[in-house]
């Protein structure tokens, strides 16, 4: 079962045309390289669009969120 986290994090991401793809992120003093973006989906928080990325480093699964309005990243879940 995933653990709820909801913390701001630093993310290295590729922005190309209309797509965003996280490549690595720093969390718990570790730099985690993303091997696979397994699923993406969108939600809204008020007027802000949020992009969700389910990502795997080959060992664990994490959910990263990108707020299109604030351009901030958060980690929502880890397992």
């Amino acid at each position, binding site marked *: 079962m995933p653990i709820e986290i909801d913390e701001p994090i630093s993310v290295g991401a590729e922005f190309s045309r209309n797509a965003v793809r996280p490549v690595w992120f720093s969390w718990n003093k570790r730099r985690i390289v993303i091997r696979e973006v*397994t699923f993406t989906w969108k939600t809204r928080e*008020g007027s802000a669009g949020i992009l969700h990325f*389910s990502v795997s480093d080959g060992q664990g699964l994490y959910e990263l969120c990108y707020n299109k309005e604030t351009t901030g990243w958060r980690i929502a879940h880890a397992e």
Partner: protein
Amino acid sequence: MPSEDCAGKNRRTILHLDMNAFFASVEQRSDPALRSRPMAVIGSKHRGVVLSPSYEARACGVKTGMTYGEARTKCPSLVFAIADPDKYSHACEELLKIWQEFTPLVELFSIDEAFLDVSGCGRLFGDPVQTAVRIKERIWQEQGLTCSVGVGPNKLLAKLGSDMQKPDGLVLISPDDVADVLEDLPVKELCGIGPSLTQSLATMGIRTCGELGRTPLAVLVARFGVLGGRLRDMGLGKDDEPVIPLDEQQETDSKSIGHSMTLNEDCSEVAMIERHILQLSEKVARRLRRGSYHGNTVTLTLRYSDFRTFSRQRKLRHAVNHGLDIHAALCDVLGEVRIDQPVRLVGVSVSGLAKNMVQMPLFNRERKRSFAAEAMDDINDRFGEFTVTWGTLLERYRHDRVISPAWQPGGDRQY
């Protein structure tokens, strides 16, 4: 437009697409560790009812509706994932984009089922079976999901076809085959004939669609009223219901607006139930105001821990769309109810709706309250639901992992 066959008769071609184990398949796609193993999507950590078992779990006997414990007994290696409606909504939107590339006439039947009217698409995509194959391929390539497709001359038969072969099926019921397919088919297999109707028909000696279609119309009308004619048509495989595309579905005015929530823990405390009612009243009121509705009838629904469910309704002197008005009326209703068991579900709805019934508040107090509601709506639209709310709701119940009744592709309905 319906296509014309060589005899010059107008014939429709309808596809019904049913996504296989949709929630479970999305979770398996999202989490590589869940792929190819028995897993099930459950509603929440606290109320572990299976919503969608994967096909690997179904092979072990796990079924929708089983409790956490029952499912584990059937399949000790079963893995659970908590439902994430946002993922499923998004996946549905992506599917809708694919379907709408084949035809603009797409009717969403539920989050994982749709009817497509592909009459007249033959020159673009081939015959109906070829069209269905192309859609299935696109869904697999782009979404990694499988579906069962029924192809028929109407919605009733297309739906029947998709139910006949699962998972990943494709069944064509052509107009010439209808009588043969229906002759010995139990009536309960038809969409719209549930257990109660099946029982009623059985008492009349009608068990198969063939028998239903041969029953004189007068006999069915005498027993079921206007529904009798519809039942006879169903027995004959007739259905004129059009495929209603999404934009037309959205234009239909609502008859009622409501929300309910299953609580994490059963609750007997009246003050707590009143707080849940306030939270639900606020959500309902927000949707009423977004749709420019007022309603004059409020309904409270409670479900006890033993699943006994009842509703109490109250007609108001004035139509309302403010959360506090709905809450106050329902607290009165609650005061008249003897709560003899812990409550597991609370529901609030408003009916008797009138659209654009705007009357400027006459008195200062009313005006201020109306302006305050407008200001709260603006802030919550901008920053998210319950950003500004009543102090009582700071301790509100947080259970956002449900699919909103207002859900539709592209975001919730405006009301």
